[in-house]
């Protein structure tokens, strides 16, 4: 049908106005922020030392179940360590991995995406072929192989995620740069004689930044999941540092006797991933007018 006959709602808005009006950004961001606070103040918040074991107090149920031990609100694991404290400290690992790995994947992917999109030619051809090769790898298997190569540990997990997931950034950024470089502001930057790298980072990058922010948020969710997968397979963080994936794997061993041990870290994982996804979705919607400006 022709047209609605009414004007659209007021058109241009500032980024922050757009952000503030979005419930998902607030909801998701709030939960992510909460997790971040927990991670930041883990040593203060945790009621016990997450490494302190008491073999006499192993597999205590959480406080609301019969037979629980006072002071251990969520019960204890097979070594008698406080589950609540381990969850809190596990949050720290999860968020460190999320931020650092997503940041590393983003840095690599954005750089290559910018170069491919802006320089074109053989640079683009090379990077695009590289992306083709990369997306043909099974990601879970590749991450397992990579961590097997690098040896277990936080750094290996982060490297594995960055090495595997940079293509997510590169593909999207490349496409966006192809659009952006046709814009007038690029042409005028060229005419005033700015160098190519200067234009790329000074002019183009700020314009793809909102997009990168959305991808970054989404990648954090993926990083959290990958860390859990690798901990679960037994390849993630070494030593007795508590991680959600490791707790899931430990809980799985006693799934019949103490199902809560597996369910609680799974719950945390789901909550954080949900919140990150909501934040990413919300940012995407909120930043859409900015991107289309």
């Amino acid at each position, binding site marked *: *049908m022709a047209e609605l006959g009414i004007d659209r709602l007021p058109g241009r808005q500032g980024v922050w106005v757009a952000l503030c009006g979005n419930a998902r950004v607030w909801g998701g961001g709030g939960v992510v922020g909460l997790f971040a606070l927990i991670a930041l103040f883990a040593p203060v918040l945790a009621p016990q030392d997450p490494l302190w074991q008491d073999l006499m107090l192993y597999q205590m149920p959480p406080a609301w179940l019969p037979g629980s031990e006072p002071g251990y609100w969520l019960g204890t694991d097979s070594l008698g360590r406080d589950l609540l404290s381990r969850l809190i400290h596990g949050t720290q690992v999860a968020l460190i991995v999320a931020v650092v790995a997503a940041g590393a994947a983003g840095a690599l992917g954005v750089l290559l995406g910018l170069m491919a999109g802006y320089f074109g030619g053989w640079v683009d051809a090379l990077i695009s*072929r*590289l992306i*083709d*090769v990369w*997306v*043909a*790898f*099974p*990601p*879970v*298997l*590749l991450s*397992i*192989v*990579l961590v*097997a*190569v690098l*040896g277990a540990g936080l750094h290996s997990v982060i490297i594995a995620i960055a090495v595997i997931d940079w293509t997510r950034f590169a593909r999207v950024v490349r496409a966006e740069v192809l659009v952006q470089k046709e814009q007038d502001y690029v042409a005028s930057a060229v005419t005033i004689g700015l160098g190519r790298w200067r234009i790329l980072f000074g002019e183009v990058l700020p314009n793809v930044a909102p997009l990168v922010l959305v991808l970054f948020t989404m990648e954090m*969710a993926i990083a959290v*999941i990958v860390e*859990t*997968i690798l901990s*679960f*397979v037994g390849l993630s963080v070494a030593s007795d540092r508590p991680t959600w994936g490791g707790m*899931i794997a430990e809980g*799985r061993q006693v*799934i*019949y006797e103490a*199902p809560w041990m*597996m*369910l609680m870290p*799974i719950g945390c*994982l*789901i909550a954080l*991933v*949900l919140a990150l*996804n*909501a934040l990413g*979705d919300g940012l995407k919607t909120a930043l859409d007018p900015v991107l289309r400006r």
Partner: protein
Amino acid sequence: MPIGFLVNRLVLAIPTLFGVSVVVFVLLRVVPGDPIAMMIPPGAGQEDIDRLRVLYGLDRSIPEQYGIWLGQALTGDFGTSISLRSDVLGLVLQRLPATLELAALALLIAGALATGLAVLGTASRGRWPEAVVDGVTGTVQAIPDFVWGLLFILALGVLMPVLPISGRFDPRIEIDFATGFYLIESLARFDLDTAAMLLRHAILPAVALALPLTAVLARLLKSSLSEAMTQDYVQVAKVRGFGPGRLIVREAMRNALIPTVALSSVQVTFLIGGTVLVERIFSYPGIGNMAIGAVINRDLPLIQGLVLTFAVLFIAINLVADLTYAALNPRVRRG
């Protein structure tokens, strides 16, 4: 179908596969953990170790090893698995049908559920069922497939054990299958008892794999459907007096499928990649399960073969997605 397009895509796949093989080859040669070390028995000396090393060709330089491997691979010989002592190609082909059946079943489930959810959500725009659909898909998407697998084992294998949680079928039943595609074969033979038994084994891993994809597909399809529903041709069809069900299914659906197919091929490759962990959790005898075993045993030729198999699968999926896209979209087909 445009033959030229197909040929073009197949030609493009060659450098991709080459790249994959080089990367994985080099990667695997720097792995700490040596397949030979795994088979050194108590009492063996250094000369025994060296002898085994020569036997498996591990004494040469990496480029030399790659050259040998590539030469053989081009003739269809992908080497011999160190831990399973069999021809890699044969091993992979033996196990591949199990994974393909599982993935196909998961895809079918995901497609059906996603369509149902998307149609429900679209049909109930602005009312509570839409909110429920959005909430469910958003939540389901946040839970990775292997966590679903664990939750299913807890719920249906432990708390209420109604379904088998390991294996592909019950080995007590002696069946001779002519192919590796047990489910398809038993359906083709109208052997419904066997098919039902196979399905009972496959359903939990299949649903675990399917759920995250379902959520993604449902969201994609719902937004495409919602957009298609606002298109003029749907409005015009409405004016001809067609009911809402018909409008969604006959008018909007195919148009909505076009962008959904284009965007979902990556998601489908994630599903295939997810078999690695899910098959492991459910002791399902497919290539994913075999892959973890291969990594643990440092079985280099087998890992190599499996990674390449996954790469071929991924490329094939993208190709199928492109062809489906073309088949759905007449403008691409003729234009």
